[in-house]
């Protein structure tokens, strides 16, 4: 039927039409969409196994139409390690928040990276525990108020926020590490490219791939989505600089 309109965008096939539970303006939803687009474009649906964390994205399996395993809080990297070792020709990724990947799951994260496990970490760093209602995360910025740091994070007792991209890029096992954000359209495109590179490098078997997305949490940052993007730019990005931290040796 001719409508006079040209279709320039549609929902990726692997992105299910289920209504997402994410709060308005939350970047989890954008990253889900990017993953689904890539799975479509790279024709990976039959080859991919994802691992969900415990965090706001615990229901990712309701939104992206691929096989998934749901891990215990913090254990996604252990599951992903084993899935990839059992099914070496599949594409395996874990999708984890900062509490999951960098607090309770730090040991699994570090050791998977050190062993050079051939899967992709997609790390959503929103500097807070979203799911449980806004407690301090390992990546919460200094001075930032959360329900467990009501007077602001104190570096003296809580340490400085963990810089995971910098940290994991130290390991020989890690082939690729990049920090991105989705705070504007250009950065959304970069995020997609970064995840695509990570998937490709995984397929080449070069080592662990790690994409950190500097994200937001309007609900627990107690601000509008718009203000949250401003905060990403003005507060998060100066401390968590974007860029490629590790590339495969050519």
């Amino acid at each position, binding site marked *: 039927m001719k409508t006079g309109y040209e279709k320039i965008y549609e929902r990726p096939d692997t992105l299910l039409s289920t209504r997402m*539970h*994410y*709060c308005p303006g939350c970047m989890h939803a954008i990253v889900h969409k990017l993953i689904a687009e890539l799975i479509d474009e790279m024709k990976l649906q039959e080859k991919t196994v994802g691992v969900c964390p415990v965090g*706001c994205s615990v229901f990712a399996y309701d939104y992206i139409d691929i096989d998934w395993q749901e891990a215990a809080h913090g254990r996604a990297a252990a599951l992903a390690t084993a899935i990839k070792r059992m099914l070496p020709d599949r594409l395996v990724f874990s999708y984890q928040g900062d509490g999951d990947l960098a607090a309770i799951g730090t040991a699994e994260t570090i050791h998977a990276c050190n062993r050079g496990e051939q899967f992709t970490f997609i790390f959503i760093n929103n500097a807070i525990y979203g*799911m449980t209602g806004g407690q301090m995360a390992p990546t919460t910025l200094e001075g930032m108020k959360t329900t467990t740091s009501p007077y602001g994070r104190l570096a003296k007792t809580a340490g400085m926020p963990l810089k995971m991209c910098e940290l994991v890029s130290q390991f020989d096992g890690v082939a690729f590490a990049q920090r991105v954000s989705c705070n504007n359209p250009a950065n959304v495109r970069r995020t997609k490219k970064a995840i695509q590179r990570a998937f490709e490098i995984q397929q080449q078997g070069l080592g662990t791939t790690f994409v950190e997305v500097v994200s937001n949490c309007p*609900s627990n940052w107690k601000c509008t989505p718009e203000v949250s993007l401003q905060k990403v730019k003005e507060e998060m990005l100066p401390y968590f600089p974007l860029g490629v931290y590790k590339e495969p040796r050519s």
Partner: protein
Amino acid sequence: MLKEMIFSGFGGQGVLSMGKLLAYAAMKEGKEVSWMPSYGPEMRGGTANCMVNISDRQISSPIVTEYDVVVVLNQPSLDKFESRVKKGGTLIWESTTIKNGPTRDDIHVVPLPAIDKATNELKNVKVMNMLVLGALVKLEPVVNRESLITALKDTLPKRYHNLIPLNEEAIEMGMSLVKDN
């Protein structure tokens, strides 16, 4: 006497605080009370509720599935809780924003244009919950009006005490908008 009630609406409409205030006021009158909020990701996407029980005796179950009084401030809440009003119970619904009203005829149905009245007459939509509370205690005298005002004084931080007269006005207006049960 045991009244089992639920208050439900969007987060930000003050449903949790109106339930808390009512429970607190009843406690001050020497009654047994319980207040139980919905919690967890269920609240994401907006809808929050709290169950309030007021009784002369120890409250047996803080969580119940059928209510004597249901107060709903948005459409999803009405859709969810209309069927859970006990036969003969009371359903108060916010009639400015809820488009599809209740359909049951075996309960006492009370439409209340609380958002409209609070916005246009009281010039502050934030006291909409107090207006609803006023209507509620007129229909179901679980606590008296004075206890509500005292409760406000006890629970509001000092810096907001200048708002007490407005809250009082909202309670009055709510009471005047409904007839006795």
